[in-house]
């Protein structure tokens, strides 16, 4: 597995500061608050997948902040932890800020203590002080500083309180103006003795590397690939040379003679930070009562045996219904405006006396497809993304993973796959990158291979359009939106079900293995920041996805116009190509044009329906492509309800878009797996479509 070691481009005079912390402690909020929201990456559901970097300044000090992936430990069990660990140890950071959650201080201190063991340049940032106050927890920061021996700063990042003090302390630590902390909580005496012996035999460690104490602990634990990697990074001989290796094995032997075998030694080393965190939290936190009663009540609603699954489906349905009902009006408005612009453009072309082919290629080709993509995609995305982000901010996504874990367990996959699947609803490519949170390489591959079985936002509009045209009918008003949402919920449930099925098939065939154990934290619920969520999701997600779609739609519109208007032997190229595809497509209940549209839509699924419509229109034009006109056009082109159903199935299950394929190639490092990731959903889709079409034919439906 490759390392995702972030590359830092540091400018002279800058202080490099790493930002570490558990997931869900508001680390990204601290990062965004410090860098002034200059950083828009990594705000997809779940977590900071790749390392974000941003800059800020305080007085004369300039900082380069590196936002590390959220992790619980530095022991490098997963690719993310490895990236965080490697950067803390070897990334050349001048200081590390460890962000802790004031409402779950003891839990989040564990990582802080591990970081403190690696480097002495640590600032502990206790975030979410405002939340703690709401839960009637009082945190004594001075007492905590006494316990930890490193600067502690209290912060409420969402309200932007305490950030200046945080930067001030960070600058002091980075410039080594603070005292080197003493070891506060030593290991049991025999282990300390062993560590001292190993330390004495270590070769010199270059400055900026991890502490000798941490290296000694790793050597004493021994027996892992880890120590070799660490010594490589430090530029030391393998395993820090024979003297250190010998000292370590001597020390282990001596401990074993005294009755502390390897297991007991590891247990004692593991217990130390836990006990330290316990005493530090006990000294710092005083609580008059049970502050998490509300969380318990909410959990009884969201994850209990009786209500967990129904509430989850209801939420999914609710989000889709709001999206559909809310998107109708702006969609019509946008479409009317954009097509009015088209008329104006046409008039301008005529007035200039531009040749007909130029007008056709640019206005009827490029502009028309572009206008369509914008008017169809923008409104649903602008509603869906913020709603989704609100649920994410609220802390609901880990609960989805909790509710669905049993299915993934039966599929011999990782429970965290539920989280990456949720990311896939936004964008499959992002979901694939998100699979880095899965520890086991086998389970990670399963998650990657099945990532495109849930519809991404690029596919929602197409599926939705067809569903509402053919299965909801021309009914207006709230009833239609409800029915559309219900059907779309069904489509999504089908996709999720297929994810389980394919994961199971994969883990029984090419990726055989037993499910690895997993632990999942259910973070406290938090009131989402509605305003920020809307801004963030509109700018980060909606415009990003839209921009990508538009960038693909414009050339695709041109290609389709050329295909439709260049003739060979009296027949347009488009008719040649779609005619060649037609017999095969008919087997699947589709037609040649639809299949061609899916093939041309490889760069971005959003443009499939616009391309199909353009192809049907061929050389003709339409003033306005609203729902009714589109329905009439499709019916004229021979669509039946069976065609519509098969098109929906095929857009749910077919090859992933080019971006996703490239991402899979990058993440798996293998063409073979990339090919399988394309073949798997395609096979599923073709199989289902063939089955549907054949059944329909047998039952006498027109196909």
């Amino acid at each position, binding site marked *: 597995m490759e390392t995702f070691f972030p590359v830092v481009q540091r400018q002279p005079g800058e202080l490099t500061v790493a930002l570490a912390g558990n997931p869900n402690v508001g680390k990204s909020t601290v990062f965004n608050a410090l860098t002034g929201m200059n950083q828009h990456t990594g705000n997809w559901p779940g977590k900071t997948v790749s390392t974000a970097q941003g800059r800020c300044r305080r007085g004369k000090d300039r900082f380069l902040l590196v936002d590390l992936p959220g992790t619980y430990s530095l022991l490098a069990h997963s690719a993310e932890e490895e990236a965080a660990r490697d950067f803390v140890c070897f990334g050349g950071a001048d200081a590390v800020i460890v962000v802790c959650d004031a409402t779950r201080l003891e839990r989040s201190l564990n990582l802080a203590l591990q970081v403190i063991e690696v480097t002495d340049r640590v600032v502990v940032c206790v975030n979410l002080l405002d939340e703690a106050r709401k839960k009637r927890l009082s945190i004594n920061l001075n007492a905590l500083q006494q316990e930890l021996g490193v600067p502690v700063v209290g912060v409420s990042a969402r309200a932007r309180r305490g950030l200046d003090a945080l930067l001030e302390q960070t600058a002091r630590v980075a410039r080594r103006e603070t005292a080197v902390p003493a070891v506060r909580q030593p290991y049991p005496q025999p282990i300390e003795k062993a560590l001292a012996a190993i330390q004495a035999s270590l070769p010199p460690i270059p400055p900026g590397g991890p502490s000798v104490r941490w290296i000694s602990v790793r050597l004493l634990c021994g027996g892992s690939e880890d120590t070799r990697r660490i010594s490589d990074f430090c530029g030391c001989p393998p395993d820090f040379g024979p003297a250190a290796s010998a000292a370590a094995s001597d020390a282990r032997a001596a401990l074993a003679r005294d009755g502390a075998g390897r297991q007991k030694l590891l247990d004692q080393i593991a*217990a130390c930070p836990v006990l330290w965190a316990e005493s530090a939290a006990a000294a710092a936190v005083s609580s008059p009562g049970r502050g998490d009663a509300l969380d318990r009540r909410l959990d009884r609603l969201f994850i209990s045996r009786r209500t967990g699954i129904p509430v989850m489906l209801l939420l999914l349905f609710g989000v889709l219904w709001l999206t559909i009902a809310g998107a109708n009006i702006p969609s019509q408005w946008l479409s009317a405006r954009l097509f009015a612009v088209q008329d104006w453009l046409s008039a301008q072309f005529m007035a200039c006396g531009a040749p007909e082919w130029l007008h056709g290629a640019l206005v009827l080709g490029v502009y028309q497809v572009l206008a369509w993509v914008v008017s169809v995609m923008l409104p649903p995305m602008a509603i869906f993304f913020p709603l989704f982000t609100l649920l994410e901010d609220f802390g609901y996504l880990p609960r989805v993973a909790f509710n669905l874990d049993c299915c993934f367990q039966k599929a011999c996959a990782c429970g965290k796959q539920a989280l990456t699947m949720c990311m896939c609803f936004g964008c499959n490519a992002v979901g694939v990158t998100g699979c880095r949170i899965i520890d086991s390489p086998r389970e990670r591959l399963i998650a990657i291979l099945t990532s495109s079985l849930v519809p991404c936002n690029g596919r929602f509009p197409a599926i939705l359009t067809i569903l509402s045209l053919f299965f909801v009918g021309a009914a207006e008003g709230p009833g239609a939106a409800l029915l559309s949402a219900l059907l779309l919920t069904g489509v999504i449930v089908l996709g999720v079900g297929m994810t389980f099925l394919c994961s199971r098939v994969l883990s029984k065939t090419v990726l055989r293995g037993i499910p690895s154990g997993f*632990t999942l934290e259910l*973070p406290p619920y938090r009131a989402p920041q509605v305003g920020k969520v809307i801004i963030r999701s509109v700018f980060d997600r909606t415009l990003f996805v839209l921009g990508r779609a538009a960038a693909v739609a414009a050339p695709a519109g041109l290609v389709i116009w050329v295909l439709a208007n260049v003739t060979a032997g009296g027949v347009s190229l488009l008719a040649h190509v779609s005619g060649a595809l037609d017999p095969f497509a008919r087997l699947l209940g589709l037609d040649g044009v639809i299949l061609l549209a899916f093939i041309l839509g490889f760069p971005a699924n959003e443009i499939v329906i616009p391309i199909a419509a353009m192809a049907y229109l061929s050389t003709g034009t339409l003033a306005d492509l609203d729902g009714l006109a589109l329905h009439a056009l499709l019916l004229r082109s021979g669509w039946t309800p069976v065609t519509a159903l098969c098109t929906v199935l095929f857009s749910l299950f077919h090859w992933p878009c080019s971006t996703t394929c490239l991402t899979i190639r990058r993440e798996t490092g293998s063409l073979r797996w990339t090919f399988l990731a394309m073949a798997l959903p395609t096979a599923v889709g073709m199989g289902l479509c063939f089955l549907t079409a054949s059944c329909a034919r047998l039952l006498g439906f027109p196909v």
Partner: protein
Amino acid sequence: MNTEPLSCLREGQHARVLSITESGAMRRRLQDIGLIEGTVVECIQKSPSGDPVAYGIRGAVIALRRAQAASVIVQR
């Protein structure tokens, strides 16, 4: 006082950790979330299918699959 695996706890019950039978990386992971000898664990909520189960461990709520919970020996 009888001992039992953590997975046998019913919702609302508390117990004290005695030992872990899991070994290797998973053992360390369980220790990292705070399951060391003497830690008091509360069974908070079972999932819709009964597996995994959410436990209250040192102020945090953490879900464990039955296989992992069965490897933690506790005393009520």
